[in-house]
């Protein structure tokens, strides 16, 4: 659903093309910047370095998993603020279930792990459906509805965890979070599969096309016969499930369920989607952009530590990229002749 540029304006068309790819452009600029700095200052390569690639890609997985669901939500002109603590809740439940299956039910570690992951994901059905219900049926604005769920999920996560982190001793489970296959971290493989599925859903299915339509103009989408209520439910459901996957994998990686696991990741997930080219007004965005957005954030934060810049610059750098990204988005809109969105 790439918006068509005004005809006969080659310059504008080119600019738009660039604007669409801005996240990848940012990524390339950043990588070149860090590469040059690392070579000059340390005589080392930043990007032609398997170790760095592994570290950065694993670093990006957690915010990216949240951002994948968030992409659908933002394209539909919504926002999901509950993701961080839904992830924490999933992480806690996954840890408890994996421990329970292993210790009390006496299941083998592999099955216990699957129990944990499954329970972690299933528990997110509740916040997902409630979010969807609030927004679709009761017409609560997404910002408020999911903010409420942010609190509820947070409280539930802390209650289930008893205010602590729940440690998990299960080699299978920690393996899924930490092992590598032919040098590729398992987490990256799983996240890549999730990306492919999400990309397919968004670009190849009716569900994805309806999401764009709803974000571009809800009244128009309704008149076109799209069931907005059902669609909204599905979108927030999907978003919560992705947070569940992120939480269940977090538990594997750190061998512990933590209620606050996703709290710092929420804003990173929104930033990744926005840097990736989605508009908070809805109607635009794609999975490839979101992947680039998540990588941009990971590369900045990792790169600045790698080249030994004072840590506070990280915040400034990420903030600056978000602002530039939104400015590019605005300019793009101007070239589209003020395309009206709801």
């Amino acid at each position, binding site marked *: 659903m790439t918006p068509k540029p005004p005809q006969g304006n080659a310059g504008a068309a080119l600019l738009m093309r660039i604007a669409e790819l801005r996240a990848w452009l940012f990524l390339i600029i950043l990588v070149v910047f860090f590469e040059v700095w690392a070579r000059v200052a340390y005589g080392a390569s930043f990007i032609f370095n398997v170790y*760095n690639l592994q*570290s950065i890609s694993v670093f990006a997985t957690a915010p990216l998993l949240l951002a994948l669901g968030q992409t659908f939500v933002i394209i539909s002109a919504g926002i999901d603020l509950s993701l961080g603590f839904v992830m924490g809740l999933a992480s806690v439940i996954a840890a408890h279930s994996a421990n329970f299956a292993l210790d009390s039910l006496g299941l083998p570690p592999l099955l216990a792990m699957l129990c944990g992951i499954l329970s972690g994901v299933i528990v997110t059905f509740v916040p997902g459906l409630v979010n969807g219900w609030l927004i679709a049926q009761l017409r609560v604005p997404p910002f408020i509805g999911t903010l409420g769920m942010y609190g509820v999920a947070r409280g539930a996560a802390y209650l289930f965890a008893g205010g602590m982190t729940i*440690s998990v001793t299960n080699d299978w489970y920690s393996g899924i979070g*930490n092992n590598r296959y032919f040098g590729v971290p398992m987490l990256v493989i799983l996240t890549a599969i999730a990306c492919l599925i999400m990309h397919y859903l968004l670009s190849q299915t009716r569900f994805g096309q309806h999401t764009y339509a709803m974000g571009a103009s809800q009244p128009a989408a309704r008149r076109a016969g799209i069931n907005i209520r059902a669609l909204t439910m599905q979108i927030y459901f999907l978003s919560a499930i992705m947070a569940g996957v992120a939480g269940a994998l977090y538990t594997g990686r750190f061998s512990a369920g933590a209620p606050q696991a996703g709290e710092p990741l929420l804003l990173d997930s929104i930033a990744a989607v926005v840097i990736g080219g989605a508009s908070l007004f809805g109607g635009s965005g794609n999975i490839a952009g979101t992947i680039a957005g998540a990588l941009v954030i990971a590369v900045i*934060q990792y*790169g600045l*530590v*790698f080249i030994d810049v004072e840590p506070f610059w990280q915040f400034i750098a990420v903030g600056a990229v978000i602002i530039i990204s939104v400015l590019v988005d605005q300019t793009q809109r101007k070239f589209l002749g003020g395309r009206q969105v709801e």
Partner: protein
Amino acid sequence: MDRRSAVKLMGAAAAVAGLGALPGRARAADKITIALVPGLTADGFYVTMHHGAEAAAKAVGADLIYQGAAEWNVSLQVPVLDAVIGKKPTALLIAPTDKKQLIQPLKKAFDAGIAVVCVDTFIGTGVFQTGSGDADFPLSYVASDNVLGGRMAARALAKAIGEKGKVYVSNVKPGVSTTDQREQGFKEEMKRFSGIEMLETQFNDDDANKAAAQVQAVIGRVPDLAGVFGANLFSAGGTANGVKAAGKIGKIKLAGFDAPESIVPQLKDGTFELTIAQHPAEIGYFGFMVAYANATGNPVPTAIGTGFTVMTGANIDDPKVSRYLYKSS
């Protein structure tokens, strides 16, 4: 002194009067009740502090009320505090969740005639009974000396890495009094080792994912990194994951802070070289005793610094060390 003698006299009088029903009732009404409001309940650190306070209450035959919020949050702690004040305890032990925002709510307790003792965290500057400022009214501040804790971590880590190499601190965020002090103590002590180079502190926002990526980035630049001090559990845990991913467990020595029971296997398998255990039971015990001594007319110190224990894989089975693990229930 006068009041204490008076109390003694009263006690003696009661004893002389015999152990009849009347003095018994009078004594029940006069019984000293001390409340403990933790930063959050169900946290191993505060649970252990509660145990310490209970032991003290039992030793002197006073009552203990233990009430707190489930989360570290000012707006959750204050209602609990108000409810506790409503019960009119003799004294109040509290771990304030904010240096500034808890001043007024605690002033209310003080104005109601309830003696306030800060445990673990503090209000204002943490220096009390000086006659200056609006937050000097608490009787005393009983807590770990976090600067000292940082120093102990530095000494133990320096020894573990043979007093040479590069180290850094993985910290939560700037502006948190306890973790700032640990970092300060750690850096000051490390200056005494000429062979050790301190690298820039990394702040992880309590995000284990970020702490892991940061240590990996530092290792990428400084392959001969010798050690890291994680100033709290999340920093240490995230850093451990990054070190593991880089295949450097055992080569890079990790020093952690705090000692929940879950740390034991990680000390034994070498994930952590050492951790600095605070003594929360001591904080509870001596905090209670300060409040009790004051209530019975005895002078009390305005600050008590409690100790630390360095735990390693080698000493953790020693009951003298393992008794300092935080209890989970």
